């Protein structure tokens, strides 16, 4: 209140009080608040942007790693290995014995070997280290010098494997791949695709 108000006499004071009785319409305040500017959003600190970017990079790298190894590369590498003069670790045993031995070697091993192949006496087995994966290899001599190789990886090692065998020919090899209930299976044979299907 200013010093000028000491110029108020009794009548002024009474008139001012009467004037102050005059109230605005009830909806005026609400109408005025509708004009209110919106409270600005607080600026996002720089470090939060940095943190968000780092998370995106991590998520991207993680998504790359979750894509899993390439089936195509596995088939290419393994067919080269199988064409080489490799050694079997265990020979001349029933398939159940080979599976038990492989499991004891901490290698991925499946028990859902295709029925027609399971009827053939296996030649032997070994462990294969590929791209950090410890896989199992069981070889079956189908006669006439023809050998079928079955390689088993941990289930889910390869992305988008079909649950039914998919057969393809690559050079002298025919290859089948599928996801079983307990392993990712790759089958190799230096034969035609049609012949390979006999063992699935």
């Amino acid at each position, binding site marked *: *209140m*200013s010093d000028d*108000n000491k110029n108020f006499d009794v009548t002024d004071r009474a008139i*001012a009080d009467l004037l*102050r009785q005059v109230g605005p319409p009830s909806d005026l305040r609400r109408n005025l608040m509708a004009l*209110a500017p919106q409270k600005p959003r607080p600026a996002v600190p720089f470090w939060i942007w940095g943190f968000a970017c780092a998370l995106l990079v991590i998520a991207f790298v993680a998504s790359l790693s979750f894509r899993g190894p390439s089936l195509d590369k596995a088939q290419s590498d393994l067919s080269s290995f199988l064409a080489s003069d490799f050694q079997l670790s265990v020979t001349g045993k029933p398939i159940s014995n080979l599976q038990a031995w492989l499991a004891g070697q901490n290698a991925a091993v499946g028990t859902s070997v295709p029925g027609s192949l399971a009827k053939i006496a296996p030649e032997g087995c070994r462990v294969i280290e590929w791209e950090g994966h410890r896989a199992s290899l069981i070889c079956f001599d189908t006669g006439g010098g023809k050998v079928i190789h079955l390689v088993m990886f941990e289930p889910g090692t390869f992305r988008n494997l079909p649950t039914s065998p998919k057969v393809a020919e690559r050079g002298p090899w025919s290859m089948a791949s599928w996801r079983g209930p307990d392993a990712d299976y790759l089958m190799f044979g230096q034969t035609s695709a049609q012949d390979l299907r006999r063992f699935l």
Partner: protein
Amino acid sequence: MDVDPSFERVVGDHYQNLYRFAPSLSQNEADACDLVQQTFSIYARKGHQLRDGSKVKTWLFTTLRREFFSTRRRSERFVDEPPDEATTPDLSEDRLSSLDGEAVMSALGKLPLEYREPLTLFYLEEHSYQDIANQMDIPIGTVMSRLSRAKRRLRALLENE
């Protein structure tokens, strides 16, 4: 998004006195409301430029007055009357007790604009002579003489209503 709390505070502090002042210019309740809303609309856009919070009240009243004169041709002629040395009569206690706010507003409305405006600001109490002079852009001596005459006319109107 939330409403800016500083805007809500300014509205709460000043809208009632602005509304009481606006009819001294517009002489019409609807126009008075429009003037107050127009004033706060400008404050919503430009209020953040006011660095000194103590100047908000003066800024609002000055802006309301400027808006009034920018949208209305001044049909009333401003004439400074010669100083009137007559004393300002007091209203009797009985007469004062029989009045209400509407009667005062009605009597104020019958005064010429150059009296209505400073008198309303004066009765809104927190306005000093200097505030009124600044807002009306007239010398402080003119404010005092207009107030003197305005009070005398208002009291005469109230006495005879």
